[in-house]
């Protein structure tokens, strides 16, 4: 077999001709469908691909994308952002967090605003930088505001492990790691939910395995296809979903779990990473998702043996406990259930824009309202 080149691994899965062929095949097969398909792409990365390549416009009328909750920045409730701000305001603290998180406002403003007021807030692209910052500032307390779904949790676990083995005492953690299956379960269990197929987040599965979605397939009788992030990946996934729906229609075959992204995902996932996560974290009883509300078992916290690194415990008397909801005009909950589109919200593009988001879906570039805003050429007044 010939060798593959690095650039082929991306370009090959963006080939316009392949995109065209797959689109045509999907459109052709979809004419045979008796019922329409409402497919939820759970992960914000997929939302991004769909909007960027206009895949939603290339689908026939009887196939609709519904944008899911899978963006860790979007689902962060305001009270947790307030925690981050409250921690950054403590004397002698450096607060470290990932990427977009810094721009999202809680009720006390965003971390960026906190930094403008003099707080030492650092936004990094590599969690390992938190360890470096802790080593370079031994006289300070460095708090890593950890966010992310299953994909990013193991990185935090590696940080905890390295801080322990290297004796770096001044690195603490405020843990906001969340889990995909309980969030999707909360959406599908709603009687008004129209979703009848799922595109499974693949990088979550790289870590946690494809099998984590099997209970959703069994419980809700929906096909789940674990998909890569390139446009060709998403279209091949859509083709798989249409084929599954046709099989069901013709021969009554039950929907199943399928793995499109087999070049990077093995069914059981990355067991080395799972072990590290398991050593470090245990499930929280419940966690409030911005836009979705309280969901049981949907997040993780540090295990008791790491209580000495848990900023939520150590600073508990400094952290507010009030729960804060989005503005009542915000349609995010309905958008996530497939009952509304961003432009149906009265605030969309007016009171609610990426620089002043009112609801979770506008918060980061991976949220549905944000994606609609950017790809419909609206301008942000700020």
């Amino acid at each position: 077999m010939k060798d593959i080149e690095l650039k082929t691994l991306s370009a090959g899965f963006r080939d316009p001709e392949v995109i065209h062929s797959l689109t045509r095949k999907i459109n052709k097969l979809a004419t045979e469908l008796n019922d329409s398909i409402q497919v939820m792409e759970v992960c914000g990365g997929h939302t991004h691909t769909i909007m960027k390549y206009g895949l939603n416009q290339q689908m026939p009328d009887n196939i609709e994308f519904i944008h899911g909750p899978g963006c860790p920045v979007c689902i962060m409730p305001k009270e947790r952002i307030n925690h981050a701000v409250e921690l950054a305001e403590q004397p002698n603290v450096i607060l470290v967090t990932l990427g977009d998180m810094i721009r999202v406002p809680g009720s006390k403003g965003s971390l960026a605003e906190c930094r403008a007021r003099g707080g030492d807030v650092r936004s990094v692209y590599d969690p390992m930088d938190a360890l470096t910052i802790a080593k370079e500032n031994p006289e300070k307390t460095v708090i890593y505001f950890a966010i992310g779904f299953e994909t990013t949790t193991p990185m935090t676990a590696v940080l905890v492990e390295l801080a322990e083995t290297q004796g770096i005492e001044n690195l603490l953690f405020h843990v906001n790691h969340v889990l995909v299956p309980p969030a999707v379960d909360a959406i599908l269990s709603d009687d008004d939910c129209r979703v009848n197929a799922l595109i499974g987040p693949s990088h979550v599965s790289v870590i946690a395995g494809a099998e984590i979605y099997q209970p959703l397939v069994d419980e809700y009788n929906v096909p789940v296809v674990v998909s890569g992030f390139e446009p060709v990946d998403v279209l091949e996934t859509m083709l798989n979903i249409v084929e599954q729906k046709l099989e069901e229609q013709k021969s009554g075959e039950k929907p199943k779990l399928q793995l499109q992204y087999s070049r990077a995902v093995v069914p059981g996932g990355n067991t080395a990473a799972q072990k590290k996560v398991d050593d470090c974290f245990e499930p929280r009883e419940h966690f409030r998702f911005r836009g979705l509300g309280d969901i049981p078992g949907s997040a993780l916290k540090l295990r008791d043996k790491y209580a000495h690194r848990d900023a939520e415990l150590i600073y508990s008397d400094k952290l507010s406990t009030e729960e804060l909801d989005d503005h009542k005009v915000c349609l995010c909950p309905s958008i996530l259930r497939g009952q509304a589109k961003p432009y149906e919200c009265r605030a969309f593009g007016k009171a609610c824009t990426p620089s002043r988001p009112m609801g979770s879906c506008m918060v980061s570039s991976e949220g549905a309202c944000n994606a609609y805003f950017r790809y419909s050429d609206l301008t942000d007044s700020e």
Partner: protein
Amino acid sequence: MCLCVPSQIVELHEDSTATVETMGVRKRVSVHLLSDSLAVGNYLLVHVGFAISRIDEKDALESLQEYANLREELGEEEFSRLLV
């Protein structure tokens, strides 16, 4: 946030890190999360500075071959329609 880029190993280091190349850019990433033995030239999926899996080259090539077949199959169909 969840986007990952395919990268190729250029050099392996003692401290569970590797230098990888991504689209002409070289950087050092953590391989703490990979238990299998790695070699220079392997393709990795990198997410926020951490390699999270190896990319199966054979699998990737097979997918690309399938797409090429599909393109051909649909192309021929179109062609035969033009003939009638």
